[in-house]
């Protein structure tokens, strides 16, 4: 049996797109090949969360998502959060609270935080820790990241949470 090269249709950051690749290849690689290099590869085995994206509104690790599972899906990557120069509240808080250092974990961390604030609009610090438990950071020691997420929910009008 030979591999079936394929092409899937999906929506990325609100725009209809086609992604090329084997149906069992990683969504991560297809996104990066399409120029969306904000999505990072960390461990490549679902442990670190650096490659997290939103797939039909739910957080997934794109290294464990076969391209076939992204067919006809709406994908949000880190590139899709800001509206032109206007950063998402979570991004602004990461900036102001020192939530980002080397930056490799940041896209996944920010998307996990956005996902958390959609599910739990007023999280406790424990909620934040649980919500980000799948994202590893080797720089910050996490405290400034947790502070950034709590800061973001203060900054965020309820409607912004939908973004």
């Amino acid at each position, binding site marked *: 049996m030979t*591999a079936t090269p394929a092409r899937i249709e999906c929506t990325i950051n609100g725009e209809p797109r086609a992604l090329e690749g084997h149906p069992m290849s990683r969504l991560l690689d297809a996104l990066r090949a399409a120029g969306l290099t904000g999505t990072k590869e960390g461990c490549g085995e*679902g442990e670190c969360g650096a490659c997290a994206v939103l797939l039909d509104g*739910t957080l997934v690790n794109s290294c464990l998502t076969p391209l076939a599972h992204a067919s006809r899906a709406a994908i949000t990557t880190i590139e899709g959060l800001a509206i032109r120069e206007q950063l998402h509240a979570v991004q602004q808080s990461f900036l102001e609270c020192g939530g980002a250092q080397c930056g490799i974990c940041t896209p996944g961390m920010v998307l996990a935080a956005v996902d958390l604030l959609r599910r739990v609009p007023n999280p406790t610090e424990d909620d934040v820790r649980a919500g980000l438990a799948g994202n590893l950071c080797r720089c910050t020691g996490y405290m400034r990241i947790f502070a950034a997420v709590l800061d973001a929910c203060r900054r965020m009008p309820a409607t912004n949470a939908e973004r």
Partner: protein
Amino acid sequence: MIPVLDGFDLIAPASLDEALRILASDRDARPFAGGTDLMVVLEAGHLPPGRYVSLWAIRELHGIARDDRGGLVLNALTSFSEIRESPLVADAFPMLALAAREIGGIATQNRATIGGNIANASPAADSPPALLAYDAEIELLSIRGRRRMPYGDFHTGYKKMRLEPGEIVARVVLPSRQVGWRDGYRKVGTRRAQAISKVCLAASVLMDGDDVADVRLALGSIAPTVVRCRAAEDAVRRRTLSEEVIANATRAVLTDIAPIDDIRSTAQYRSAVAQNLVAAFLRDSL
């Protein structure tokens, strides 16, 4: 690393019938659920080539419902996020909700499924001990029909299970229980979050005054399969609970388990922790 995918295919049939027909006609075809285990194995270069049949898009394999006998039916593609958030699960089978919360992070829980956790057949899986403690049954499905068996009979050895060619794990059934059981679930790993278990205990006890009317003790990561600790259960069932009875049960745990040294822990540590978890659980009923 990007694996070479020659010889692999992943198809996503739209209907259950079509998926079962493909699995019946191609002996090498294998079911594929959320991908959180198989994609890791693929990435590591250990996944056998062949045709994989994604069940993800098949609606009737998702969801949680009450059955007509007061139990709960979890369809196989139900994600651990759905299980984590389900009031039905939290009310009647809280250990399963706790287990769901401990399976990787949110991104993993969103895609990892109860059926995948069973069919991946890892002795270190987090939901199976709870399924054993709740006397779960599983329903297997193929083009030939459905059959049901106690979940405790399903795994026969390391990564071995009673799944016939062409068959999928379709449902998990949790039978209703009388009120009064006390549950305890405890996973011990390297860190609180996102770690694979070194030892995992799911336990339930039904007390009648100071006597143990009935008990379930199930452990993960301490044998080639998850195990019901029947010797330890027998040491406490229908006895008046005391430190001495607990000590007997704790000793009996060693005859129920067969831990090994591996990358995550040692046999000695696993034995000690398994015994401590059982003793701590039972002591809460003293």
